[in-house]
């Protein structure tokens, strides 16, 4: 188990990158603590898989360093880095039994059979696969195959880091939450450093203590699930996390206050910059309420999703979503919206630029 440091990491798939757009990863600096559970979250093509492959050593970065416990491993091949990785599609050795599959990484390292047997049994128990140890792995269902792939990653107790590359892609929706929770439980039991790459916010937020949100080769925000939800550092994070995502509404910053469609909006606290090109208000649908007075809006769409309804309204040309419990207005109704002040933030050129009252 190890602490992982990424220093000035850059990567391009072109031989002679010039433009910043040629880079799949643009200048990444990160510190991952020993024993932590981390997630790399972002849409496809944001560079998260590239970053993962650089950490595992399957890809050599164009620039920068990777350190495991302050030791430079940038030039080491994957097998010398002492890591484990679980791939998007289950990788199992077809001709072997489940037991032999789990034992494979240990046997390759010359560990004696008694030790192998103890470790395999222990891992099989954690994964609830002990009753299928003697079955041939090729005959398992996809979710069990993926469990075996995970098991091979977790069976060694000397790994520096275990990495997961969208491991639940092929799993049936109704089995996903079972594996999701299994993974979380496994982390709590084995206490290894784990990095989980996904485009699914639920998987990332469930699994990780710290989530790294990426967009176009850059880290946009690193934070706990609560921080990402409550104070997105960038409108992208606000939009990407939560369903529906945060409302991002173009506004005007005037001398005295923030105005949306010429209506004054109370935001959480003072703005920190006054020279951004564009300003936007960010407020989550959870904190938008329908009231008797406030911002005038027209109901555009109402979706009853059982637990609550999502009301989509238009303020002028701007769409705003609100999460409503109980009675809902009809399409075409004129309503008034209120934004909960301590959850209404200001973004300048995409970045958070309001401070909460009482904060420094």
């Amino acid at each position, binding site marked *: 188990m190890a602490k992982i440091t990424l220093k000035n990491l850059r990567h391009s798939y072109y031989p002679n990158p010039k433009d910043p757009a040629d880079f799949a990863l643009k200048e990444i600096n990160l510190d991952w603590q020993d024993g932590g559970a981390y997630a790399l979250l972002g849409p496809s093509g944001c560079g998260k898989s590239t970053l993962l492959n650089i950490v*595992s050593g*399957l890809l050599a970065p164009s620039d920068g360093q990777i350190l495991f416990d302050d030791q430079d491993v940038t030039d080491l*091949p*994957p*097998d010398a880095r002492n*890591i*484990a*990785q679980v*791939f*998007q*599609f289950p*990788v199992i*050795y*077809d*001709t*072997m039994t489940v037991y032999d599959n789990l034992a*494979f*990484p240990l046997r*390759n*390292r010359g560990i004696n059979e008694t030790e192998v047997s103890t470790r395999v049994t222990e891992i099989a128990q954690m994964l609830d696969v002990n009753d299928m140890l003697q079955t*041939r792995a090729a*005959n398992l269902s996809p979710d069990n195959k993926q469990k075996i*792939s995970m098991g*091979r990653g977790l069976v060694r107790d000397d790994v520096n880091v275990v990495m997961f590359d969208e491991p639940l892609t092929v799993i049936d929706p109704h089995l996903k939450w079972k594996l999701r929770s299994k993974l979380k439980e496994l982390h709590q039991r084995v206490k290894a450093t784990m990095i989980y790459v996904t485009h699914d916010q639920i998987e990332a937020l469930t699994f990780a203590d710290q989530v790294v949100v990426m967009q176009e080769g850059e880290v946009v925000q690193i934070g706990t699930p609560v921080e990402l939800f409550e104070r997105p550092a960038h409108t992208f994070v606000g939009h990407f996390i939560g369903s529906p995502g945060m409302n991002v509404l173009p506004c005007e910053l005037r001398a005295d206050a923030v105005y949306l469609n010429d209506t004054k909006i109370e935001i959480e606290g003072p703005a920190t910059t006054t020279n951004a090109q564009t300003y936007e208000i960010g407020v989550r649908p959870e904190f938008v309420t329908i009231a008797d007075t406030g911002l005038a809006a027209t109901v555009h769409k109402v979706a009853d999703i059982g637990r609550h309804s999502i009301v989509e309204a238009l303020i002028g040309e701007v769409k705003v979503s609100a999460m409503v419990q109980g009675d809902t207005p009809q399409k075409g109704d004129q309503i008034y919206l209120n934004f909960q002040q301590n959850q209404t933030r200001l973004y300048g050129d995409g970045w958070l630029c309001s401070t909460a009252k009482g904060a420094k």
Partner: protein
Amino acid sequence: MKKHNQKAWLFVLPVLILVAFNALIPMMTVVNYSVQETFGDNLFFWEGLGWFEKLLRSDRFHDALGRQFLFTGLILIIEIPLGIAIALSMPRKGFWVPVCLVTMALPMLIPWNVVGAMWNIFTLPDIGLLGYFMNHTLGINYDMTQDPLAAWITIITMDVWHWTSLVVLLAYAGLVSIPDAYYQAAKIDGASNWAVFRYIQIPKMKNVLTIAILLRFMDSFNIYTEPFVLTGGGPGNSTTLLSIDLVKIALGQFDLGPAAAMSLIYFAITLLVSWLFYTLMTKDDLN
């Protein structure tokens, strides 16, 4: 419930007719010949299973069958591992892929009788490139019209040259279909190259290899043109394989009855071995 109508059978009729002309009728003719004796003039005498009995007891048949198995066994032992080895060493992506593939496919594009003639000339001791080099430059006595060993080495080499490509192409198709994740996982699991070969590449190539072995078995067991053009079955009878012997009996001696019986036994052996092999190879998948 609507009554089924039987019109659909009409659609199957062309296929039935085709199969009949293609396989059943020639086959039945052979069966017919195999139980009779003829001296020409379309006169036939009932012989029962006599031909089969004689044939199965004849040394000539045993020898030819033995040679046939030896030939097929040898070429399988050489071509399959060699084919896999070449496929493994071929590049998986980039500029050289098409070059390798075309080079590999070339020998298979040459007509069989031309292959035989080519190798015949190639090995002639006085004018053939190989023959001259062996005899005059290296001083090794190499003449396949005199020496059975030389003849055997030549037909085996010729078949390996002609057909290893088929194994290579099939094995290569199997190899490129393995997702990268398998190699990456193996690297991370600390697997040696041998382990990668044994636990990933071989299992993933199994299906195509089964086909490769089957094809090579059937083709080499029925091989005729190339060795006939190359050695004509000689020197003596040393390279007279089953098919060459069959043609000798049927067309050389015009013994239609024994030849027909031999064809049927020949066919039965090919069928039996292929079936045995296929069942063995696919046994695992069925459980």
